[in-house]
């Protein structure tokens, strides 16, 4: 029996997918061929290792946190704060980074840090990663949305304000956005503490061919 010819069949043999005749033939070959036998043993080891690979438990309140994003603000005043994922999280979809080296005093006009393309009527999570050099307690965040763009769950709200504690390092602000028409204006996230503040501007456009700019 040709080793190369049975290479694919060894997977079927491992998975118990062969009929009795082929199973016996492969089994006999494995008795005689040290190379194929070694490969088969390695495959068994691999499966054993994969099946005992532990997975972490889901974060507590994962469902509740997701549902807080659906609920109208009037219905759940205690849950209006979008989730801040603390630590060095890896943004998965549309990640925009900004470093808050120090808060600037007073509002300063800054160009958008990025352009995000949304598909019409399709919710998309924009993640704004904010780095701070130290813990910043009770930071006020004011989000201003462009016309025709909505934060999912907050229909009709162009401006939202809430407070959050920022921790030293990376903080992730998730903004589930949906465009109901051509966006007009920019998304502005302003972070303030006392008299100091910093604004992050993101240009929102409609996706034309499925690409994300």
């Amino acid at each position, binding site marked *: 029996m040709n080793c190369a010819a049975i290479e694919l069949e060894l997977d079927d043999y491992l998975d118990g997918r062969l009929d009795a005749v082929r199973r016996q033939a492969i089994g006999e070959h494995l008795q005689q061929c040290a190379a194929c036998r070694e490969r088969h*043993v390695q495959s068994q080891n691999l499966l054993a290792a994969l099946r005992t690979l532990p997975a972490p438990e889901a974060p507590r309140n994962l469902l509740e*946190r997701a549902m807080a*994003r659906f609920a109208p603000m009037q219905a759940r005043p205690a849950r209006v704060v979008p989730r801040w994922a603390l630590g*060095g*999280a890896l943004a998965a979809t549309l990640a925009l980074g900004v470093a808050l080296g120090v808060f600037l005093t007073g509002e300063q006009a800054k160009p958008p840090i990025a352009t995000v393309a949304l598909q019409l009527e399709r919710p998309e999570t924009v993640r704004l990663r904010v780095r701070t050099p130290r813990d910043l307690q009770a930071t006020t965040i004011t989000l201003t949305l462009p016309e025709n763009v909505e934060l999912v769950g907050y229909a009709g709200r162009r401006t939202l304000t809430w407070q959050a504690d920022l921790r030293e390092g990376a903080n992730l602000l998730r903004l589930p956005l949906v465009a109901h028409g051509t966006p007009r204006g920019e998304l502005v996230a302003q972070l303030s503490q006392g008299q100091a503040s910093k604004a992050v501007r993101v240009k929102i456009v409609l996706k034309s061919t499925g690409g994300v700019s």
Partner: protein
Amino acid sequence: MSLVSLFRRSRGTAGRFEELLRPHVEYLYRLAWRFTASEADAEDLVQDLLLKLYPRTAELAAVELLRPWLARVLYRQYVDTVRQQGRRPPLEPVLGEDDPLEEIPSEAEEPDAHAERMALRARLLDALRRLNAEQRAVVALHDIEGYTLEELEKMLETPIGTLKSRLHRSRAALREALAMEPSAASQRVKE
């Protein structure tokens, strides 16, 4: 429609959604972690999925076997997310993220054996991260979660031949990673 009736309708949908999804959240997160090998990415993936499913609560209620249906939409969401990222390597080590593989050795286990097992798992996880999205998903669903190829053919809407090919390439890459220390690997399972 009054604000009160809107509120009631919203709570009703939310309650139904929660009732439908709660039994599956742990499973979805575990599967998402197996796809992404990152806790932060897994959480993002599940959050995004829930966000997209919420408007489809009535459709969810009509699904007979919800778990495999959810696994399929999670897979689609995962592949879409990877594609949106411009096919950059979808998984990168995330500094500061807890390593779910870290374990306290059991009293019955020798420290050397524990260290070797941890090293093996680290190599395996690293090798999984190097697979592409489709390969990692088929390994997660078939080799780890135990779905059959026939089930995956329907779930992923992918021919069995394609699935077998992905599995074959994935296993070859993973075997190679584990064989970095062949003396350890080859002794583990006896014929």
